[in-house]
């Protein structure tokens, strides 16, 4: 098959022929083609099937507003469904396939839907498939979903790279048509930093598709010259293939740049880049979009927008038909007839809804004034049209022009309401533009070429002046004010065949009327009920038609009916582009402790703790189950000594003359009198009285403290403390800095921990129980002078220490600790053993500090001082939080020793069924205790402290398990705390 519909001329590089395939057929086009223009040049008319009725559809437009020509581009993971052929730049080796048909495109088995149309009107699925109820999810919905729709995803991971970036400029110019180019020249010559962005790969906009002259040369040539000048200027960034998709606050614009979409291979480069552009001023030069007219069977392949038909002929040298008819309500449609005639096409007829011919028709064309098209014929491609005067005209292409709608979208992203203008029968930007935005050219309703050039220049001039630049005075390029008179005609009112309004969603005029009849009278309801204006094109060619039908039903005008709200994005943005590089492991940073490498060498199994990776356990040779490793580690700590990296706990350095007073106010227990060289456990409340966090704080000096927080709350506690410091007590002399990553900290726990540390800490520091008792702290040196901090604190309940060294010594420190500990049989232990040890001791962690528990629930009510002001103490006294039947943190042991407890189980009395009404609390943490030889748990239960010894049910319906448990003290091991004081 050769390029049967290719003519001379156009903006193509004919020296570069490009091969591509559509539905497996190999075809050829030229550099400069879009997929759509190449298909038209090859005489391909049928390119897809419609959403609901599976009607044959062809290319309808020449731009991003395309509703029909959606194809799947590329293959497998690279495949991208719903790509508009009209904006797909042709490249050698392009592979495209059509969508939404079963069997071949030409003989789609689902076309039967078209005959069922009377049953498939708007909202049919709400009405028809109601009963039986269970059938909806199992039968109706899957069937409807598989028969309707657009393209399908490959289901494979997208192998391409997407990126993000930030740009800054004085003036952002959106659209590089006549208005945009003129604006860019004026702005750039004034010295302002300019970004010029356009969705097309070739700058020029309609200058490339029209035959009108600018400054005595062709529009396309003038555009080329303007681009060449802009490209030579250092203060200008040209961004072709870039869609400005959203106008956000404070002059920030979202932009999607397609970097390698037009190449066969990305070669490791990003396929698309999502830019955030910070502008001081923006000039919207987005042009206008032509709209259709609704008439009987107006959706056949070969029926296209008139401006697009001549765009294909003028820019791409591709004739959409051999015998072309024009149906218009405005002067612009006539230009399609004259341009096409100039290319040698046979103009069959011009049908104008108005009474008076504005221009001269090409020779041989039938002119029907005051007439309209009522029906068409031709299943896979247009064959003839029937007019209101009864005549039938044979043609293979019908160019329809319903007038031009200014592209006001971005002006409305901050809730500006567009205003109706009778003279152009369209909406133009309203008075409340986004701050810093100006609008020029067709987007502003200035539909003639000369007006667009003038407005572009004027708006740029004004914007540059506002920013303090000296705009150069330049002569406007000469151009004509072409005829653009139009009439408000949207819809052929006849009881004929279905008239399509929204091609993409298969919404007909009848659907809009039905929606009104059923009470959906607001445009927003109309949109949601009929789906008019949804999906990839957002009704760019259709919305006004729908509004006109709706206005007619309401008996109101179009401006009274109003438009739906325009929201970003202007055209679709792939999720991949929004995600950028934040995929998989790169979704958030991974933080590694300084002992990570050493743990890896010991084959540690790691677990994610927030952003951190922590060693979960360290399997030894012969251990086949995680419990074997964890039990061994826990037992070794209780019997000898173990080492655990606790660096991930938040560390906040607090200094200042009022540091002690500050701590006294942010902790519920007293800190003012903590002696230097001592550590204290601190309980932190939220202002509402709930527990926020806990940890230990060490007083290293009179005015120097180090606070620890839980790993999970390190960031939020720091934020909270800064709030207290700056907003509540700005007069306190206190300063904070996060030191979590500056210090590598290790817990050394077990009866031999002191023996081990004596070999680490330099001998001048006395570690005896008398000199360095439980809860002591101090600055020491290790291994001959390395600075270090030592804390005698215990999470495991054993004699234990935590030792911190500057992070750069962390790796050396863990290796040295393990080496010197060898004689005591030291083990590294992970977060699982850590958890076993703390559950055995009844220490709460995040499971218990869940944001819904009070100090009283945790049995820590004595830690909320009544004698001082501190965050949370006033509201912690609310009566409901202090009820007699409130929850209490208790221990739980299985009645049958060999049974395993499960976290999340809920407690009920033995004699009551396990229902929500009988719920008395829940299990928060469980572990197997190697010390006790059975499963143990912590949990909250109503009136727990009065119920020690009672047996209750622990129901876990999720795992289908209910067992009996005995309520016990939460301190399973060494309740008196003798070991940690040894």
């Amino acid at each position, binding site marked *: 098959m050769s390029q049967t519909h290719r003519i001379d001329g156009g903006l193509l590089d004919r020296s570069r022929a490009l091969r591509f395939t559509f539905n497996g057929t190999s075809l050829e086009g030229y550099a400069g083609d879009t997929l759509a223009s190449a298909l038209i040049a090859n005489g391909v008319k049928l390119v897809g099937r419609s959403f609901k009725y599976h009607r044959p559809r062809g290319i309808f437009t020449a731009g991003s507003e395309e509703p029909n020509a959606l194809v799947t581009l590329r293959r497998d993971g690279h495949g991208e469904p719903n790509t508009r052929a009209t904006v797909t730049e042709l490249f050698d080796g392009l592979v495209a396939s059509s969508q939404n048909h079963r069997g071949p495109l030409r003989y789609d088995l689902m076309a039967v839907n078209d005959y069922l149309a009377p049953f498939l009107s708007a909202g049919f699925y709400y009405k028809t498939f109601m009963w039986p109820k269970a059938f909806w999810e199992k039968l109706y919905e899957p069937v409807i979903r598989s028969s309707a729709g657009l393209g399908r995803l490959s289901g494979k991971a997208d192998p391409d790279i997407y990126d993000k970036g930030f740009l800054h400029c004085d003036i952002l110019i959106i659209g590089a048509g006549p208005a945009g180019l003129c604006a860019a020249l004026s702005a750039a010559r004034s010295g302002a930093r300019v970004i010029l962005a356009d969705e097309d790969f070739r700058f020029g906009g309609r200058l490339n598709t029209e035959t009108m002259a600018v400054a005595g040369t062709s529009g396309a040539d003038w555009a080329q010259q303007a681009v060449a000048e802009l490209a030579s200027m250092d203060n200008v960034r040209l961004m072709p293939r870039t869609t400005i998709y959203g106008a956000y606050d404070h002059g920030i614009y979202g932009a999607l740049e397609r970097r390698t979409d037009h190449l066969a291979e990305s070669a490791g480069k990003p396929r698309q880049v999502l830019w955030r552009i910070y502008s001081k001023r923006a000039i919207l030069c987005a042009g206008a979009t032509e709209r259709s007219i609704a008439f009987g069977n107006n959706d056949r392949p070969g029926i296209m927008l008139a401006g697009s038909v001549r765009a294909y002929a003028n820019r791409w040298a591709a004739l959409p038909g051999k015998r072309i008819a024009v149906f218009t309500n405005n002067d612009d449609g006539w230009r399609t007839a004259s341009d096409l005639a100039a290319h040698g096409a046979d103009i069959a007829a011009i049908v104008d809804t108005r009474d008076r011919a504005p221009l001269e028709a090409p020779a041989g064309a039938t002119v029907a004034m005051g007439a309209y098209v009522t029906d068409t014929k031709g299943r896979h491609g247009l064959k003839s049209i029937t007019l209101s005067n009864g005549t039938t005209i044979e043609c293979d292409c019908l160019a329809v022009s319903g007038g031009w709608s200014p592209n006001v979208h971005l002006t409305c992203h901050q809730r500006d309401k567009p205003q109706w203008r009778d003279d152009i029968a369209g909406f133009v930007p309203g008075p409340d533009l986004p701050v810093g935005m100006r609008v020029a050219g067709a987007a502003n309703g200035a539909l003639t070429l000369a007006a667009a050039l003038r407005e572009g220049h004027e708006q740029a001039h004004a914007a540059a002046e506002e920013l303090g630049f000296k705009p150069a005075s330049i002569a406007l390029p000469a151009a004509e004010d072409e005829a653009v008179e139009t009439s408000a005609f949207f819809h052929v009112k006849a009881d004929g065949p279905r008239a399509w309004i929204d091609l993409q969603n298969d919404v007909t005029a009848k659907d809009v009327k039905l929606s009104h009849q059923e009470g959906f009278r607001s445009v927003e309801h109309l949109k949601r009920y009929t789906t008019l204006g949804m999906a990839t094109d957002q009704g760019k060619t259709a919305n006004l038609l729908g509004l006109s039908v709706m206005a007619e039903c309401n008996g109101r005008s179009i401006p009274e009916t109003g438009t739906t709200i325009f929201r970003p994005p202007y055209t679709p943005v792939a999720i991949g582009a929004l995600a950028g590089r934040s995929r998989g492991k790169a979704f958030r940073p991974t933080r590694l402790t300084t002992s990570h490498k050493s743990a890896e060498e010991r084959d540690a199994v790691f677990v994610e703790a927030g952003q951190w990776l922590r060693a979960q356990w360290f399997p030894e040779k012969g251990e086949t189950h995680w419990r074997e490793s964890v039990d061994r580690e826990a037992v070794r700590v209780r019997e000898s000594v173990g080492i655990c990296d606790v660096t991930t706990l938040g560390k906040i350095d607090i200094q200042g003359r009022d540091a002690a007073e500050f701590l006294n106010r942010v902790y519920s227990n007293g800190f003012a009198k903590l002696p230097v060289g001592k550590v204290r456990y601190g309980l932190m409340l939220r202002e509402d009285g709930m527990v926020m966090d806990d940890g230990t704080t060490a007083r290293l000096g009179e005015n120097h403290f180090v606070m620890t927080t839980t790993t999970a709350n390190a960031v939020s506690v720091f934020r909270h403390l800064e709030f207290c410091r*700056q907003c509540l007590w700005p007069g306190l002399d206190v300063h904070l800095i996060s030191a979590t990553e500056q210090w590598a900290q290790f817990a050394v726990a077990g009866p031999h921990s002191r023996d081990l540390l004596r070999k680490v800490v330099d001998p001048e520091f006395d570690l005896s129980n008398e000199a360095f008792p439980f809860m002591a702290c101090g600055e020491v040196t290790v291994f001959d002078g390395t600075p270090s901090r030592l804390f005698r604190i215990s999470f495991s309940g054993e004699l234990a220490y935590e030792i911190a060294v500057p992070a750069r010594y962390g790796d050396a420190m863990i290796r040295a600790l393990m080496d010197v500990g060898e004689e005591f049989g030291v083990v590294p232990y992970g977060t699982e053993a850590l958890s076993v040890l703390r559950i055995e001791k009844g220490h709460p962690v995040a499971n218990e500090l869940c944001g819904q528990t009070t100090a009283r629930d945790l049995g820590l009510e004595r830690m909320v001082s009544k004698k001082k002001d501190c965050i949370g103490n006033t509201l912690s006294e609310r009566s409901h939080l202090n009820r007699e039947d409130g929850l209490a943190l208790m221990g739980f042991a299985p009645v049958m020793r060999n049974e395993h407890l499960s976290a999340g189980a809920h407690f009920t009395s033995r004699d009551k069924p396990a229902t929500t009404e009988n719920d008395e609390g829940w299990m928060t943490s469980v572990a197997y205790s190697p010390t006790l030889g059975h499963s143990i748990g912590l949990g909250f239960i109503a009136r727990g402290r009065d119920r020690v010894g009672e047996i209750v049910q622990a129901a876990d319906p999720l795992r289908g398990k209910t067992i009996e448990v005995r309520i016990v003290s939460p301190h399973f091991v060494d309740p008196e705390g003798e070991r940690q004081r040894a």
Partner: protein
Amino acid sequence: MIINHPLLGPRDASEFVYLGDASLIDRPDWQAKDAQQQFHDYLYLRDNPAGAHRELWFHEQGDRSWLVVTRDTITHEITNVELARDVALQRGRGR
């Protein structure tokens, strides 16, 4: 959005964490007779103005200043940015 930090100049809103109404600066006196009621109102009752709103933002990815930003809730226009510490001092908060 862009927040014009009084010390650092214009910064992107993504560097900040939002807290809420700047009235959170006015923490009640714990020894007041009706302290519970006052704390309740302080913590839970907020105006929801359509227009100018003074609110607290934390420059977490920056210098860790708490700021009082006056923002129009309809247009997102920011008319004033102050250091929360200065505001707190002006409102009589001290030690």
